[in-house]
């Protein structure tokens, strides 16, 4: 115990160490604050959108007397609200869509729209907790630990300390452990504070803290390994920063390049192209060319496929659906490709602890690729429900009524 108090006393007099720890706690607090602010602004934006969306639909309620017009002009807001832990890792929310305005037309033309913020921001990235814990903290730890032994060597106390210690390595271990512990505390305390403010719950905060501790533990091991070579402090520091560069920058970049080369994706432009051609060709084709593939999917409307006019709404929505059907293989491949890329990245991320920790925090925050894809599935599900609501009304040519409109599905953010 006295050893620990002695080390704490040493640490409290080590101005450099206090500076690095001070930076750690300051940046961690700032990142948590910024994350909380970002999440609350996203929530406020969604609240405003939800309200405007309802208002908009109310305005449209009495405007159209035809189900075709109603379905054509009515948009529905779909969204993926930030989770209680999203403040800690913004993840993909900078570049992937988390809100859409959807209508009953062909979905493939709508679902790839991204209401993104200033691209300059997405390019630089956010100062979120995950960034601090995964990229900044290892560097701070390196700065804290790189001269533990070598500084004593340089001042000529090393041999003396080794000789007088109860067992070899013990003063170093205690000294390093104290610094590692202090750094972990500097990160985890702001995280828990933010988490409790945001209502994250211990079930998320505990594994997140474990991720942070394990990741820092990895870097402690790297520092300890380098220490064995007995280099001078500057050489030690250079080598450790080199290791950071390798693990935190080069390996992830190499993984990304190889994953994307291994799993090619269908070109986005091609998806849109195919979809548009299918939808537009329908105008010039015999009506049966649309209604047959449509009925294959929806046999329940087989008796209603008679289209006598040059333009009928049911035929219009049928070819919207057929447009989606035509592009389905490509769209499916685009989705599966993203899943496979993510799975491959997940297994290769074991080569880079910072990337692994980042992915773990994003998974806890619901801001990873899986969350994006889950939201996409939700939008597809909702769009399907919209179609299933409109089809009977279009095919049976029912009159538009408030009672019928009241049954229209509303987007729910939970469940798929």
């Amino acid at each position: 115990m006295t050893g620990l108090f002695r080390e704490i006393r040493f640490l409290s007099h080590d101005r450099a160490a206090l500076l690095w720890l001070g930076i750690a706690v300051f940046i961690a607090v700032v990142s948590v604050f910024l994350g909380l602010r970002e999440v609350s602004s996203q929530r406020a934006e969604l609240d405003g959108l939800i309200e405007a969306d309802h208002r908009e639909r109310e305005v449209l309620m009495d405007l159209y007397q035809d189900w075709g017009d109603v379905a054509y002009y009515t948009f529905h807001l779909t969204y993926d609200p930030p989770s209680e832990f999203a403040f800690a890792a913004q993840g993909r929310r900078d570049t992937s869509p988390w809100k859409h305005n959807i209508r009953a037309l062909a979905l493939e033309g709508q679902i790839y729209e991204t209401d993104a913020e200033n691209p300059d921001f997405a390019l630089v990235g956010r100062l979120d907790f995950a960034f601090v814990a995964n990229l900044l903290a290892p560097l701070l730890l390196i700065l804290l630990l790189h001269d533990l032994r070598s500084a004593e060597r340089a001042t000529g106390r090393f041999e003396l300390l080794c000789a007088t210690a109860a067992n070899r390595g013990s003063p170093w271990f205690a000294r390093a452990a104290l610094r590692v512990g202090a750094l972990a505390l500097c990160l985890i305390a702001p995280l828990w504070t933010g988490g409790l403010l945001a209502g994250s719950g211990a079930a998320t905060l505990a594994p997140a803290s474990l991720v942070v501790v394990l990741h820092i533990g990895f870097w402690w091991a790297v520092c300890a390994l380098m220490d064995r070579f007995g280099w001078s402090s500057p050489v030690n520091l250079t080598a450790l920063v080199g290791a950071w560069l390798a693990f935190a920058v080069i390996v992830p970049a190499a993984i990304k390049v190889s994953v994307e080369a291994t799993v090619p994706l269908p070109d986005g432009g091609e998806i849109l192209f195919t979809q548009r051609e299918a939808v537009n060709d329908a105008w010039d084709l015999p009506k049966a060319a649309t209604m047959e593939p449509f009925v294959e999917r929806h046999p329940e409307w087989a008796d209603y496929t008679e289209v006598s006019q040059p333009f009928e709404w049911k035929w219009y929505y049928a070819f919207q659906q057929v447009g989606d059907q035509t592009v389905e293989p490509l769209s499916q491949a685009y989705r599966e490709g993203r899943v496979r890329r993510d799975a491959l990245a997940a297994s290769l991320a074991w080569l880079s602890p910072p990337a692994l920790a980042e992915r773990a925090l994003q998974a806890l925050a619901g801001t990873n690729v899986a969350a994006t894809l889950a939201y996409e599935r939700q939008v597809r599900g909702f769009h399907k429900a919209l179609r299933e609501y409109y089809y009977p009304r279009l095919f049976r040519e029912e009159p538009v009524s408030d009672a019928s409109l009241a049954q229209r599905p509303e987007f729910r953010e939970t469940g798929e």
Partner: protein
Amino acid sequence: MNGVFPIAREELRLWLRSRLAFSALLVFALLLTATSVLTALRMSAEQQQRTGQQALAEETFLSQPDRHPHRMVHYGHYVFRVPPPLSVVDPGVDAVTGQSMFLEGHRQNTAMFADAGAGANLGGFDDLTAALVYQLFVPLLLIAMGHGLIVREREENTLAPLLAQNVTGVMLCLGKWIALAGVALVLLLPLFVMTALAAARGESLLTSAGLIGIYALYSLVWCSLILLVSALVRHRGLGLGILALFWLGAVLIVPRTAVESASTVVPAEGKLETDLRMQAELRAVGDGHNAGAPQFMRLRANLLAQYDVERVEDLPVNFRGVVAEVNEADVTDVLNKYAGERMALEARQARFAESFGWLSPVVAVSAGSRALSGTDLATHHRFLRKAEEVRFDFVQGLNRVHVEQLDYTIDINRSIDTASERLTRMSAENWNVLDEFSFEAAPASERLTRAAPALTMLSAWFLLLTAAVVFASRRIRP
């Protein structure tokens, strides 16, 4: 000057002999070469693909059969943002902004399919380009190699003999600076090759030279800073600590702080929010598909008076076409007003973030590099504006066909039966109202003007730090 070069030569020899310095140099040379080649391959492929897709989109539009002209308005068209030649050095916002956009009547769509959204996700700096390596990580190498330049002599007690041999502090610093700057400039070789490649593909020499210049200036800023710290401190460890702290701040913290501050100081709403907000205004303008809407009554009365006829059927022009044309112009005014506001806000955010270049040279060099390469936010906005021009022109061209060539009575009877519908189909020759779209970044002079603030900031950094080095070198005592 006599004593200066031997000092520089001695330093270089030392680096070549030091295993650590030499291997670090080698690693960076490899890293720069690899990222340069990969970025160049990727962007060249993108360039080729999008140029091909653009040509295909035009071909498909022009080869559409005879149709009602308004059908072509909704058939629409695709435009692709073809990356400029210098994007092989700095792809900038290319990966985070959509690269293709669907153009149709009465709507402004967003650019879709940003690479970043579909890429493998490994966080942090996983999207590593040669530009990023230069901006963020080359300074680490320079710090590792240069932090001991002066302080090493001090620690090894060789400073006093040096100064006693008629070597002044200024000469010593100059010699060391030349050595470090030499390394920094040699590292620019891959950049030089990539820029030459871009120049060979038609990039202006002015922007190419500007790009090399801005990275050279940036590297020299670091050289001066490193030398300054090395001249001022008493221990290597302290010098390294100070430089590490500066790097941490300049590379990791300030750029992201700039982003967070810009989004706070200049808040901008999302596109969905804007879309919903302008719905009321768009409704006031009216729906051009419905020529009987109250918004078009005045237009109708004016036209009847102008041609001195009683009924719309007797007008020499197709009234539905006129409504479509007038309405498109009005709707576009509203759309452009909101789009313009949004772009102005984003540009203000970018300028605000760029002003953090006074706190971190990294912010300055990255903004300048994107501006010169033609891969900055302003270029994306230029793409949006050019696309809007194309959209408006072809839609109005088609509306003109609707007004002038399609008879009103035939038009309103289009839904009676298939034969009547056939009569409304206009000849496909009319589809050549579509202009060819080949996106190019702004001309060199404009991009240089945009890079001017960044160049000013970097020059200020360089002059200030170099002046400080000169000042410190005069006072070097053993």
